[in-house]
């Protein structure tokens, strides 16, 4: 019944979970194709609280910069996600630049990126 024991318990559980999780991930960590820089968690946070979408963009940009600096391939979709966050913030030209980078990195994205860029060019021209 002493309170210390009770407060320790959840911590021990968390620790155990962390160990199990790291063991589980150990299997695939070496086997990973990409680094994602907490993309999932940050996207989840931005869906949970829309005021966090700028934080998502900043974290993605920092991650991409780190990957490029290290000469590593940036995971599929990340350049475009940054572009879309700029688009939603009303910055079309910056968005286009990111869509171009997605297209250059991933040929599978060509059709979508090209049509998005063309759309934005049309909108910019009509301004």
């Amino acid at each position, binding site marked *: *019944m002493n309170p210390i*024991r*009770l407060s320790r*318990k*959840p911590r021990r*559980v968390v620790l155990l979970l962390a160990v199990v999780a790291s063991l589980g991930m150990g299997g*695939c960590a070496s086997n*990973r*194709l*990409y680094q*994602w820089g907490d*993309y*999932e968690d940050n*996207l*989840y946070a931005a*869906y*949970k609280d829309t005021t966090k979408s700028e934080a998502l963009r900043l974290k993605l940009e920092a991650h991409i910069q780190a990957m490029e600096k290290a000469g590593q391939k940036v*995971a*599929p*979709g*990340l350049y*475009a*996600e940054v*572009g*879309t*966050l700029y*688009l*939603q913030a009303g910055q079309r030209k910056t968005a286009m630049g990111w869509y171009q980078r*997605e297209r250059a990195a*991933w040929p*599978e*994205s*060509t*059709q*979508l990126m090209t049509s*998005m860029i063309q759309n934005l060019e049309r909108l910019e021209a009509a301004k």
Partner: protein
Amino acid sequence: MTRPLQSGFARRLLQISLLGLAFFMVGCATQAPRDMSAFERAKPRSILVVPVVNRSLDVAAPNYVLSTLSVPVAEKGYYVFPVNTTKVVLEQEGLYEGDKIHEQPPAQLAKLFGADAVLYVRINQWDAKYAVLTTVVTVDFDYWMTGKDGEVLWKERKRMQYQPNNNNAGVSPMAQLLTQVISAAVARAAPNYMPLTRQANEEVFILGPSAIPDGPYRMKAAQK
């Protein structure tokens, strides 16, 4: 007069449930690898993950689930279209709800994005059931993929449950009781669906008998 009928009914019920149990156990014992011929014929390189359909009562669940799908599929070696960009593009086309999107012809969606395949997910269950001392968190998803022509390439259903706490050997019963109350309260305040969802995805796409074949980028990495 009614008694034999009742017992007959009861016996039949027992038989049926035993049969059901037997089927269930067979299902567990022999997890034969799935027929992947449709998938292998289509040989997709790129997969469009569209917003999720919700059959649960939690309106936030589809977005949460959406955020967990890119990584496992991309790590399998496919180009995965950026899920948030996809969602925004569909919204600009007037498609806001997962239901509306899932009603679109799959071939048309694939064509709109230039994707080789489309991945759909439906949330069947996403809830936490509270008893006095324990909480059971359940997620249940249907997953399926269609090809360029709208044909179904692959499908799977996954149900996962998580019950926090228990097994406090060596702790006094009173302390144990309190711990359970606390952990039930914690789960009630913030049921932890996300690890469960990630685990479901991992089993479906990577570990389980239904795991999709390795995509082109995974194969390329293996050749190195």
